[in-house]
């Protein structure tokens, strides 16, 4: 009955420990949905890819506390 939620975090083990179910591993603790080492256009493309992956996970049946990588 809940609202499907995807948690993007660089600390998936902690997310699992507290019971998050749909987890996408973020880039880094300090910038889960970005990468300052990339050129601006590439970074936006990465961010779109992360969110695309997150949407995929929202539409997937998952076991409790599942972690997906950005490129899976």
């Amino acid at each position: 009955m809940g609202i499907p939620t995807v948690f993007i975090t660089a600390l998936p083990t902690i997310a699992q420990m507290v019971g998050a179910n749909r987890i996408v591993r973020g880039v880094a603790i300090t910038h889960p949905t970005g990468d300052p080492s990339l050129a601006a256009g590439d970074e936006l493309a990465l961010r779109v890819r992360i969110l695309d992956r997150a949407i995929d996970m929202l539409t997937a049946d998952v076991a409790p506390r599942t972690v997906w990588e950005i490129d899976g």
Partner: protein
Amino acid sequence: MDRGAGMTVVHYLNQFFAGLGGEEAADHEPVRLDGPQGPGKALEAAGLHVDTTVACGDDRFALNEGDCLATLLGWIERADPDVVVCGPSFGSGRYGYACGVLARELGRRGTPVVAAMTPDSPGVLANEGAAYIVPTTANVAGMRDAVPLIASLASRLAAGAPVGTAEEEGYLPRGLRVNVRSAHRGADRAVDLVLAKLAGDVRTEIAPPTDRVSPPDPLADPAAALVALVTEAGCVPQGNPDRLPTRHANVWLRYPIADRLELAPEDYVSVHAGFDTTAANRDPDRLVPLDAARALVAAGRIGRIHDEFFTTTGVDTPVAVSTRMGQEIGAELRNAGIDAVILTGT
């Protein structure tokens, strides 16, 4: 051994175990009976003398919880028991719920109480850790194993004698932490745990609090979905107008983004005290990915982005506070008709 000597024991049963009837008697009003009934006789055999039995129909309790509780608690209070036993209710849902609720209310009033049921009974959740619950099998065949444990716990509670941990005693964990003095210092215990873990025996002295929620059903049609952005990364408008705490936050905030294509660094800032915000504050989309979310809307991948994003700082935040904030934000999202949430954490 007469462990029941001098103790006053009250026993709660449903209509079936009290001998009032089966499903046709499930609407039976609360009753008070002298002495042991049904399983109470097994408690007697285990040394626990039942003075008074109180019982109620399963449906009656479920549909009139307040009235039934008041009646039962009134009788129990007047009996002034040293201990109360609820059940065993085994795998019965309504009976288990009644046992769990009654035991919770007694536990909170300081009345020693033991219930017994399957670990997945709704009564365990309803009990909220307020009472000792002895795990049983789903059917009545487990009576023989459950009764000695119930009697042992109940007689010690009645006598004010010490009760060990859930692991030692075999009752269901109550979510309580108790200070104990150990003969071994922490470093020794930590090394012991590491060595045990290397040998494949994973143990902990303090189980982390967990809140197990089943994964909600997947999103059926993302292209039509209203998606909300939520973060614990401490993102707020520049100047932090509502003074979101940088740590120990016990509030969450929301800010309009309907007219925003991105979280521009001149407009937004992270005040989170738990990580180096330098990179994030050069582009707050690295924390709240609004620009990419807009791109997915433009591409028809998702329907719409909710007009507000929700934010707090998740640093030094007790789990209980996080849980409360999550429930509050969840209720807001529910009211807003949100179909899915993208949550970012640092």
